C-alpha cells in the first residue's frame, strides 16, 4: 500500500516535478506574439535554444546550492560578497520571484476577465487569486508539496487540449526551414523568460530536498526537457496551424489557435475556455512556489521561526503592481523589466556567485 504520510522533505524526483510544474504558466500566453514576431516560422528553434539556455541557468543554481547543502541563498551570500552586497543580491532574488507572481496574476486575471468572467474588474480578480495563493502559501511545505503533486495532473490535460490545434495543421506554414533570421531567433529566446518561470525558487527549495543517489541536475533536467519538448511541439503546431504572421497579429495566439478548433457534433464547444481553466493550476503552482520561496528565504535569512510572518509583507505591493500594469504601455515596460531582471539574475549574478565560490574553494585548498 502506498505511503500517504506527509513528509517534511522531498525526494530529488519530487523536486523535479515541483520545478517543472511551476514553469508552464499563463504568462506564456501574452508572450507568444512578440516571440513569434521575432523568430517567425522558426519559433520552434527559438524554443529549443531557450530550453537549453534556461536549463543551463537552473543547472548553475543547483551547482551553487550544492556548495551550501543546508542553506538557502539568503544565508550563504553574505559569506561570498559581504553583508551589503549580499542584501542587494537577496533583494534582487526576491524581486525576480515577485515579478513572476505579479506577471502570473496579471496574465491569468486578464485572461479570465476577457474569456470567462466577462468584464469583471481586474482588482477583484486579483484579490480572489491572491486570497487563494496566500491560503496555499501559509501551509507548511509538506502540504504545499502534496497540493502541487495533485495539481500537477492539470498539465497533461492542458497539453491534450492544446494538441487539438493539430487539426488545422498545414506544413506549408513552417517553411522555409532554413534559418535566415538568426537575430530574430535569438531575440525570440529572450522572450522565453515568460515561458520558464519561477525556477529561481530552486535556491530556497534545495535544502528541502533529500540528497540521494539521483542528482538534482538530472531530475530538474528531465523536467526542463519535458517542458522544452512541449514548447517546441507547441510552437510547431501553433505556427503550422495559424501561421507566424497571424500569431504576431493577435493578442492571445494560443487561445486564438484553440478558438479555431471545432470538433464535429455539439457535445463540446468553446474549447478555449477549458484550456484557460487548465492553465489555472500551473499558474497557481508557480505563484505559490514563488511566494513560498520568498517567505521561506526571508525566514531563513532573518532567522525567524515561521515563514508565514513574511507573507502579508509583500501582498500590498503584489496587488498594487498587478493592477497598475493593467494598461498596455505600463505592461510593456513591466515586461521588459521582467525580462531584464530575470536574465540579469540568472546569467550575471548566479555565474558570478558560482565563480566566487569556486575561487574561494580553490584558495581554501591551497591553504
Amino acid at each position: 500500500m502506498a505511503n500517504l504520510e506527509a513528509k517534511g522533505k522531498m525526494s530529488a524526483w519530487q523536486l523535479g516535478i515541483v520545478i517543472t510544474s511551476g514553469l508552464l504558466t499563463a504568462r506564456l500566453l501574452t508572450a507568444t506574439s512578440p516571440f513569434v514576431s521575432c523568430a517567425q516560422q522558426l519559433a520552434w528553434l527559438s524554443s529549443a535554444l531557450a530550453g537549453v539556455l534556461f536549463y543551463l541557468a537552473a543547472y548553475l543554481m543547483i551547482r551553487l546550492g550544492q556548495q551550501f547543502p543546508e542553506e538557502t541563498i539568503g544565508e550563504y551570500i553574505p559569506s561570498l560578497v559581504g553583508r551589503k552586497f549580499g542584501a542587494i543580491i537577496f533583494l534582487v532574488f526576491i524581486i525576480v520571484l515577485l515579478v513572476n507572481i505579479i506577471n502570473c496574476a496579471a496574465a491569468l486575471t486578464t485572461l479570465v476577465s476577457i474569456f470567462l468572467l466577462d468584464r469583471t474588474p481586474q482588482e477583484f480578480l486579483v484579490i480572489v487569486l491572491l486570497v487563494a495563493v496566500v491560503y496555499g502559501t501559509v501551509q507548511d511545505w509538506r502540504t504545499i508539496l502534496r497540493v502541487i503533486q495533485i495539481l500537477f495532473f492539470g498539465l497533461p490535460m492542458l497539453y491534450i487540449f492544446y494538441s487539438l490545434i493539430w487539426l488545422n495543421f498545414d506544413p506549408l506554414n513552417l517553411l522555409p526551414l532554413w534559418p535566415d533570421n538568426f537575430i530574430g531567433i535569438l531575440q525570440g529566446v529572450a522572450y522565453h523568460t515568460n515561458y520558464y518561470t519561477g525556477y529561481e525558487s530552486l535556491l530556497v527549495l534545495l535544502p528541502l530536498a533529500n540528497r540521494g543517489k539521483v542528482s538534482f541536475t538530472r531530475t530538474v533536467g528531465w523536467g526542463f526537457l519535458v517542458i522544452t519538448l512541449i514548447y517546441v511541439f507547441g510552437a510547431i503546431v501553433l505556427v503550422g496551424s495559424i501561421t507566424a504572421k497571424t500569431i504576431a497579429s493577435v493578442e492571445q495566439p494560443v487561445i486564438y489557435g484553440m478558438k479555431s478548433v471545432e470538433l464535429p457534433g455539439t457535445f463540446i464547444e468553446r474549447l478555449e475556455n477549458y484550456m484557460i481553466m487548465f492553465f489555472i493550476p500551473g499558474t497557481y503552482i508557480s505563484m505559490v512556489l514563488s511566494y513560498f520561496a520568498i517567505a521561506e528565504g526571508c525566514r531563513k535569512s532573518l532567522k525567524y521561526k515561521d515563514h508565514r510572518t513574511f507573507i502579508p509583507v509583500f501582498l500590498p505591493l503584489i496587488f498594487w503592481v498587478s493592477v497598475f500594469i493593467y494598461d498596455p504601455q505600463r505592461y510593456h515596460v513591466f515586461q521588459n523589466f521582467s525580462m531584464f531582471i530575470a536574465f540579469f539574475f540568472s546569467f550575471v549574478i548566479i555565474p558570478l556567485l558560482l565563480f566566487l565560490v569556486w575561487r574561494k574553494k580553490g584558495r581554501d585548498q591551497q591553504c
Partner: protein
Amino acid sequence: MLSRINKGNVTARVWRIAAAAIGICACLLTTGCWDAKEMQDRNFILVAAIDDADIVKKSESEKQIAQTQTFVQKQGTKEYMLSLQVLKLAKTESKGGVQAEKTFVISNTGKPMFEMVRDMLGQSSKSLYFEQLDAIVISEAAVKKNGLRPIIDFFRRDPEMRSRTKIFITPGEAKAIAKYSPPTGEPGGVYLNGLVRNHKKNIHVGGARTDFGYIIQAMDNDADYAILRLDYVDNVPKLGGLALFKHDILMGYADEYLTRGVKFTYGTEKSAVIAIKCPEHPEQEIVYELFQHDTKLIPHIEGDAIYFTLDITMQGNIGEIDCTVKHDMHDFSFLHSIEQAVAQEVSQNAQDTWKFQQQLGVDIPNTKARFKGRHPFEWKKIKDRWEEIYPTIPLITSVNVNIRGIGEHD
C-alpha cells in the same frame, strides 16, 4: 493551563470563522454572478449580412430606411447596410399550417460596423450575442465599394467571433439571404452553415480553407484567397463557385468547373464526381466517383526557368455509366481507358484553372509561399518581380487514376 488552551482554541476558531466569512464575501463580490446573463436574456445572431446601402435603398421604401434603419452620426458615412438575423428563442407556433419563422432580421445603415451594431440595440430588447454567428454574407456591391477589410474588421477584432464562421459573397442582396426561411424549419444561419458542410461531397463548393479564420490568415500573410459564392434567386439560395480576391479586392468569380480545378490543385477535395466521355461511345458519359486522393504542388527551378509540378493520385469507383450498351466491366483494358480519360479530364481542368488564375492575377494555391518555402535563396532574388513572373510560370501535371470498384451492381 486549561483556560489557556481554551483561550487558544477560541482565538483559532474566531480566526477561522473570520477567514471563512471573508472568503464567502469575496466569492459573492468577485464572481461573475453579478452580471450573469441567462441564455434567454440574449439575442443570438446567426447571420450578419452586409450590403451597399445605396443599392438596398433602391429596393426598399426610403421612409422605412430613414426612420428605423439609420441613426444620426457625426463621424462616419451611410455606406453599408448591416442586417442581423436573430434567433427567436421563444417557441414558435404554426398558424394555419404555415410554420412560424424561427428568426427575424433587424437592419441598420452606416459605417463603422461596430457603431451600427450598438445602435441596433435600439431595435432589440436583449443584448446582441455573436458567439453563435453561423454565417457572414457580403454583397458584391458592398465589397466593391471599399474592399473587404473595412467590412470584416469589426468581426476580426471582437473576441466573441469564431474562426470557423462561414463567409459568403453574393452577387445579389445579402439582406434577402438573411431574411431567408428554409423549408426544413431550421434557422437560416444554421441552414447556410450546413450547405457548406456538404462541400466534402460537392466538388463545386470550395468549403475547405475558405471560412473566416482562413480569410484572416490569408490577409495577415498578404496572400490571395477565395470566398464561397452564394446566389439567391426566387427565394432559393444556391452555393457554387468561388469569389477570388487579391489582397482586398474582388478580382472575379470562378465557376463550378474552375472551382473543381482549384480544389484539385489545392488538394482540398474530399470526394468528387468526375464525368467523362465513354471511350467507346463518346456521345455518352461515364462517371468516376473519387473517394481518396493525394495532391502535391511543388515548385522547381532549372537555370532561370521556374515551373510547378502537380502530382495527383486518385482512387475511386465507377459511379454511373450512361451508355445504352452494356460494357464488360471485367475488361481491364476498358477500365484502363476510363482511368486515362479521367486523368486527362483532371489534368485539363487543373491546367485551365491555373491559366485562369494567372490571367486574373490571383494565386489561390499560394504558389508564392510554396516557392519561398522550397527555394528561400532564389526567392530573395526574385521576390520583387514575382508579380511579373507569376503569370508566366507553367504547370506540369501528372495524374494517376485508379479504379478500385465498379459499383454495387454492374
